């Protein structure tokens, strides 16, 4: 009798253990699938990235502090390498590897610094995400609408993402139809043709040396 009760208890224990293991495994699988889905879905990823950046941007920091703290996040979300290559255009191939690295570093610093100066002192906007548009098998664009709490008219921002080996990365941003990289490419074009990498580096260094007016 005692043996039967013991076997029953043992089976119940086994069943509970198996259930617990199954639940743990299921949880793990669900978590894994969610994570995989988030990685595979550029919208979910962009949403998460923008939220992180906005949370940091509107945490009441100075321009300098924000630029330093936002850098790792922005470098994770943006392909600054591709952004810079696009901004320079075909002339990029004439640059040496050292010049390419230098220009990428300077350009990313310029973008991050300007970004930090622009958000400090402003109020956090509300962002509405639209339907993703596939541009190519490895590229898509996600339209968003940005509404600021200060009563200004909402404006359209389109993020273009590319699926690189490290995941989806932003390679261009269009504001009301104006491409960030195309605008800089137009500005750099003459500079690259006339002075090559040296002229671009000199110009970027001069630009970074200018003081930023946070109140402008």
């Amino acid at each position, binding site marked *: 009798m005692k043996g039967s009760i013991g076997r029953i208890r043992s089976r119940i224990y086994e069943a509970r253990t198996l259930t617990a293991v199954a639940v743990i495994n299921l949880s793990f699988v669900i978590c894994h699938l969610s994570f995989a889905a988030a990685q595979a879905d550029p919208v979910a990823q962009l949403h998460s990235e923008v939220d992180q950046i906005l949370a940091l941007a509107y945490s009441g920091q100075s321009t300098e502090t924000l630029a330093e703290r936002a850098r790792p996040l922005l470098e994770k979300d943006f392909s600054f390498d591709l952004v810079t290559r696009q901004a320079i255009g075909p002339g990029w191939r004439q640059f040496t590897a050292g010049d390419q690295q230098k220009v990428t570093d300077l350009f990313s610093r310029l973008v991050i610094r300007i*970004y930090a100066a622009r958000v400090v002192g402003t109020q956090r906007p509300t962002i509405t995400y639209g339907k993703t548009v596939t541009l190519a098998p490895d590229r898509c664009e996600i339209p968003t609408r940005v509404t600021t709490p200060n009563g200004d008219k909402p404006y359209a921002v389109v993020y273009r993402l590319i699926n690189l080996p490290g995941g989806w990365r932003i390679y261009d*941003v269009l504001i009301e139809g104006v491409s960030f990289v195309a605008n800089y490419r137009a500005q750099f074009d003459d500079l690259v043709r006339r002075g090559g990498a040296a002229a671009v580096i000199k110009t970027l260094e001069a630009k970074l040396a200018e003081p930023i007016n946070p109140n402008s």
Partner: protein
Amino acid sequence: MNYLTPTLLLVLTCVSGFADQTNQPNPPHHSSAATGTKKATKSSQKTTNPPAPSGDELAIEPVEKVNDPWERLNHTTFRLNDSLTIHAIKPIAHGYEHIVPHTVRTCLSNFFDNVDFPIRFGNDVLQGRIVRSGQEAGKFLVNSTVGVGGLFRISDHVSSLADVPPEDFGLTLGHWGVSNGPYLVIPLLGPTTVRDLTGYAGDFAINPLNWYLIFSNQRFISTAVGYAISASRVVARAPRSVRTYEQMKEAAVDPYIAVRNAYLSHRAAQLEK
């Protein structure tokens, strides 16, 4: 100064979290990367094999040529406008912001936007956009009544009226197939093209608030009141224009080209909507 449209957008690129043109016929100038979904989709349709994941194909797009035959003169005018913005309009804008509370400034800005309804509505009709003209009329009705004469933009909270692309006569001419023509920088007015300048004249004539300048005998509003309204409109828009212009200058390595590219790309995008 009409820097708001072009400069805005370059600056907003940075603010939002991250902020050439050709002599070809319409749809007009697009910088290659600014061409947007349509062009990108076309290119994707032509693609038979998936592109390399490095994005190399994106980095080799050349800058398209811009129809800017009067570039030297435009540069001079650009510098003149820059000085006017910094030394004349900026102090006025600062004074206005200092004296008038933010809420009142927003209301005034909304009011002048609402007053421009005949321009947007008229051009929707001229382009044969029946649905959009109805939306514009709805916006005007809602903002003029519930929004107390246009002081409050209630239409932003109505989903069907929240995002109606604004039309003007420059866009109407583009819709009819008129090409941009040469790029121009006009004193005080800022960047434009021959087509858009023609359109600006048309819009100016459509706006009842400008009739005091066109018809000296009309009794709709007196000349003095008309001038006061025009001045108020300029002042009400000055703070944002000046701020965006200065931010653009800070972000740009070549402000003239940055504004030109932003203006032409933005207009091209508006024409596609």
